[in-house]
């Protein structure tokens, strides 16, 4: 029983990160029908920003400010910085291709991904950087019920992710910006004709999606400690998977997809075999997709004739 809960918590943590990234993917896809392969690298930049904030405050072993303040600053700077980065990328690389066939921005996104990963390698070197979270948040905090050990960082991540996702839901459903986003996602030309500033809406979408990715990056640094320039590549792939499996364009779907993949990975590693984890996860996902062709929570797409 404890083993099950432990694996569940591990899966939820990993799943929360996938879900945050998948949200950004889904949002961008919804308004632009674009698969932004550079999203994972924005997450990487967020993780690095958090690392540099830690260093600025004196390093993990000797922080000059109380821990909650440091973490707050990390989140704020990472989300702001990554949001800006996302807006710049959209302006520079994707805006000219808005009317091109959908396959063209795919290559641009790949180009941006190469550029970001290797610029990080050039500027910050190849060594893995470590947050060393245990130096400022000790392992003795958290839930300890006998053999069940859950660290406070993991709890914080799961809670914070859920809060952010709920906040995003509120943003999209209740605010006027959310309404604009939904309008642009439904039909861009009609939205423009109705007086909606499409450029601003798309930039705002990119900002929010990238900010979420940045927050995800800091969280990944806090719980997984290692930060390096290629960490976004694999994470981006899984986030893309989560977004599509959950139903691309659907926010709830991205969340469900992310958690589903995280829990599946964790459970299969724990109960079946770690060697075949990825294979089995892929197999399960193929079956899921065949059973529900528009993703778990996706809307069945109407085809125009």
């Amino acid at each position, binding site marked *: 029983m404890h083993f099950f809960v432990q694996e569940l918590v591990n899966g939820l943590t990993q799943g929360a990160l996938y879900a945050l990234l998948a949200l950004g993917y889904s949002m961008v896809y919804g308004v632009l029908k674009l698969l932004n392969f550079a999203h994972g690298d924005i997450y990487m930049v967020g993780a690095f920003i958090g690392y540099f904030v830690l260093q600025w405050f004196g390093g993990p072993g000797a922080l000059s400010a109380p821990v909650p303040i440091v973490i707050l600053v990390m989140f704020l700077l990472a989300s702001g910085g990554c949001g800006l980065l996302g807006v710049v990328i959209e302006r*520079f690389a994707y805006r*000219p291709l808005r009317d091109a066939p959908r*396959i063209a921005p795919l290559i641009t996104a790949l180009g941006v991904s190469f550029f970001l*990963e*290797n610029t990080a390698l050039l500027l910050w070197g190849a060594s893995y950087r470590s947050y060393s979270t245990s130096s400022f948040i000790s392992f003795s905090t958290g839930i300890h019920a006998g053999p069940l050990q859950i660290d406070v960082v993991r709890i914080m991540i799961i809670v914070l992710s859920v809060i952010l996702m709920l906040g995003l839901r509120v943003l999209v459903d209740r605010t006027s910006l959310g309404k604009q986003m939904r309008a642009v996602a439904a039909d861009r030309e009609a939205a423009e004709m109705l007086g909606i500033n499409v450029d601003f809406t798309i930039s705002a979408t990119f900002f929010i999606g990238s900010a979420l990715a940045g927050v995800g990056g800091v969280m990944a640094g806090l719980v997984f400690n290692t930060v390096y320039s290629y960490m976004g590549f694999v994470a981006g792939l899984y986030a893309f998977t989560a977004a599509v499996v959950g139903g691309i364009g659907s926010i709830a779907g991205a969340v469900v997809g992310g958690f589903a993949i995280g829990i599946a990975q964790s459970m299969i590693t724990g109960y079946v075999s770690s060697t075949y984890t990825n*294979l089995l996860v*892929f197999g399960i996902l193929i079956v899921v997709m065949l059973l529900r*062709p528009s993703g778990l929570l996706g809307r069945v797409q109407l085809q*125009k*004739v």
Partner: protein
Amino acid sequence: MASEDVRAGGLAGEPKDPSPAGLQDPGVTGPREPSVGVDEWVARSAQRRTYAPGRLGDAQRRLERVGWWPRLLAVAVLAAVIPQLGLNQFQLQIGINALLLSILAVGLNVAVGWAGLLDLGYIAFYGFGAYGFALLSSNQLSASGIHLQAWESIPIVMVGGAILGLIVGFPSRRLIGDYLAIVTLFFGEAFVEFTNNVAPSKLGGPNGIFGLDPIRAFGTQILTNTGYFYLLLVLLVLSIAVLRLLDTSRTGRAWRAVREDPLAASLMTIPVNRVKLMAFAFGAMVAAMAGAVYAAQQTSVFPTDFDTPVLILIYAGLILGGAGSLAGAVLGAVVIEITYDGLLRSPTWAGAIFYVLILLTLVVKLRPWRRLAGVLGGTVALGFAAHAIAKAISASAVAGGPQSGGIIHDALVNWVIVPANSAGNIPTGPGNAGFIVLIALVIALAQLRGRWRTILMVPTLYLAACVWEMRLVGTPSTTRLILIGAILIVMMNARPQGLLGSRRVEVV
């Protein structure tokens, strides 16, 4: 503006030449772009009527009347001459890689370009072909092994590839668009995991399978790079020929119909599911054939040879060259391979590409000529001035010479500022800072207009040269990837339909 319309080709002819990001005016959308709702056939036929004036137009018309097959043979003969030019082993290897990538791009074009199916697991077919050949031509499966001749093993591998293509394409009955893409991606990833972790004694695991036979048939075998070059050239021409025949047949028309509008196609009695499966199967067969020859040339196969980076390369080649066009696929693949694997691996060539691309962009995009001359002259003057001032202030600020070699070094030695510390090493700090400032300047350039843009170009160009000489030349492998990323971004912005692709209207 009647004359402009005619020149542009009628109703919805060629739009204003899209410029690379950074020099484009995003606020103006020309009324001449093909837009949703306008008939594509009419638009394209209007384009066909525009020729250059005078003798050039006559030559074009005559060239167009030359058939497709003589053109293919002419290109093949030209390519066949290449190994005779006395190339070294490295250049032949690049040629072989380029031909392999071309075959793969041509095969991918069937599913992506013609049938409109995003197949992200294509690399699995390539790997299947390679592993299939490896198992049939080595000692892996038993003590003495299976050692079939190439003319036996390659058809077996191709048939197996077609079957795998049918399996992977099976979800296309229920899934469309990006959902199909993700399932094919799973297959692609699963292949690498499978060959790496499952049955290591039979499939080799991470150790791979090595010690493969070369291509052997009817008493001869191919052992040299030149031999493999010719074999691949023949295979490429054959694939293009077969696929061209398919394209101009009912199958090709069915693919195009399914790409544009599957519902309407099915109403017109086209068996949409079968057509999609055929697209997967043909693409897979071509990839499997390429994989078999690849395995023979390398005499070994490993799981990591078939991972996502190779898939990215094939896609980049296909889309850069123009999806939907056979010639485009080949051209894109060749350009990508020669640039990425060949030229950019050598620091001198990387420098040449860097400077030439910047100069070319300026020359092509900056009009009128006075402006261009002003910018270039200003940059040169700024350089000499800045170098002299920096030298006067502190000798160590210019102590490091430009890190490029050869002519570039001699030309730039009094022009770029490259600091060096007392031990003669070039510190990375200024280079990194300069790089970030350069990116900021380029982004600012993209947002400015008019006079200020022209003025800002001068320091940006100079800073680009300084950062190159200071920092980027010293790390050739990282620079290679940064450059290829930048080239992809710029090329797709400049010509979204690819080098030889045609502008398509997509009904979303």
